């Protein structure tokens, strides 16, 4: 048994243990903390599966952003009245049996792989050089399956619209109800002053390097969002009201540029979302930069939640 397989077994044991604890924990707070740890461990598993792009996304979103959203929700739900009754024992046994059957079905599928494993990797690598990109995952995201990527950004905007539309009528267009913890002498304030310059450079680097190495618009945008949220929560900058024009422009600029280049492709390259030959890389980098900004703002606003206060003039 090699040291790596010992590492893998340990990782799987930790993942299963912490995963189970997020379900079994009595306190929602403990469950959410478990989930954040689980997200970070899961990203190590993704590295072990040679999927570094996915690992970065999982660490940023699965552990970080989702965890932050859930922590905020737990803090607010403390005031909730009334407790739910747990499911009865027969119901839990039935659910356990059902879950075990589903898991066993998946396990059987995992343990009996097909004779010839289908793969698209050779096709991806064959044509990747034409796009000028070095990262095959970025190639899939922005060249072969660009429509998926475009629609994914539209989903983000739709989710943001959905969250905003939950605001009561009288505060529409107001300021999101992000909890601000403004204490001038706190560690949070210190970190909010120290980290953003580093974080912004990391975000730009991730966006830029995404064309060649693991990274990309989404991971970079998440780091940007985290930095923005940090300075907002520390009270160093105010939470903007959602009716600000610049805010709305930033949210849509990425998808709009992506769509415009896609439509231009219909004229210049004979297909929607196709890039004219020789210009693929500069166009993709332009799209990535715009998307990084839009994703950063959209994620920050999603985490900030629906408007709760009217803007004071």
């Amino acid at each position: 048994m090699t040291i790596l397989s010992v590492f893998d077994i340990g990782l799987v044991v930790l993942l299963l243990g912490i995963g189970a604890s997020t379900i079994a924990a009595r306190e929602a707070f403990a469950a959410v903390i478990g989930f954040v740890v689980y997200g970070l461990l899961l990203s190590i598993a993704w590295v072990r599966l040679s999927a570094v792009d996915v690992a970065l996304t999982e660490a940023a979103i699965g552990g970080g952003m989702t965890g932050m959203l859930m922590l905020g929700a737990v803090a607010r739900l403390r005031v909730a009245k009334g407790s739910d009754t747990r499911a009865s024992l027969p119901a839990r046994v039935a659910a356990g049996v059902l879950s075990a059957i589903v898991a066993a079905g998946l396990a059987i599928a995992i343990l009996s792989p097909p004779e010839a494993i289908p793969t698209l990797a050779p096709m991806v690598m064959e044509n990747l050089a034409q796009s000028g990109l070095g990262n095959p995952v970025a190639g899939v995201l922005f060249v072969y399956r660009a429509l998926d990527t475009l629609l994914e950004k539209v989903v983000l905007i739709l989710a943001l619209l959905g969250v905003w539309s939950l605001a009561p009528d009288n505060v529409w267009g107001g300021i999101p109800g992000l909890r601000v913890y403004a204490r001038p002498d706190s560690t949070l304030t210190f970190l909010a002053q120290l980290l953003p310059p580093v974080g912004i450079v990391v975000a730009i680097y991730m966006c830029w390097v995404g064309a060649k190495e693991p990274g990309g618009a989404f991971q970079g945008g998440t780091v940007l969002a985290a930095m923005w949220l940090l300075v907002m929560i520390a009270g160093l900058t105010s939470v903007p009201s959602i009716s600000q024009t610049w805010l709305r422009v930033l949210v849509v600029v990425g998808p709009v540029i992506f769509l415009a280049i896609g439509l231009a492709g219909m004229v210049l390259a004979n297909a929607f979302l196709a890039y004219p030959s020789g210009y693929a890389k500069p166009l993709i980098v332009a799209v990535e930069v715009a998307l990084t900004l839009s994703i950063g703002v959209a994620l920050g606003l999603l985490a900030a939640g629906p408007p709760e206060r009217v803007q004071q003039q």
Partner: protein
Amino acid sequence: MTAATLFGLCGAALVGFGLYGLVTNPEPLRKILAFNLLGSGVFLVFGVVSRRAAASGLGGDPVPQAMVITAIVVAFAATAMAIALVLRLLQETGRSTLSADNPGGTDTDRGNS
């Protein structure tokens, strides 16, 4: 057993855990969390499919990897929406439960709080 198979079985078990939590846990927030656990298990199984299809000098098939990245983003968007709904429910009713006949509280304390 290869590392990929090990992580695949881990993913299968996580799907089971997530499904169990989703069905049995009555709190909406815990259901959302369980749903995320279920989703991450599915993604992990997908990652194993990608790892096994490694070819052309790559560590895995990039197509499933790109799909998982998209999936993680969409799952986050759905989670953000779901959490906003739970918080709005709390704002409207002062409670965060899905049961119609609330055994813990009384119906008289409905209303804006």
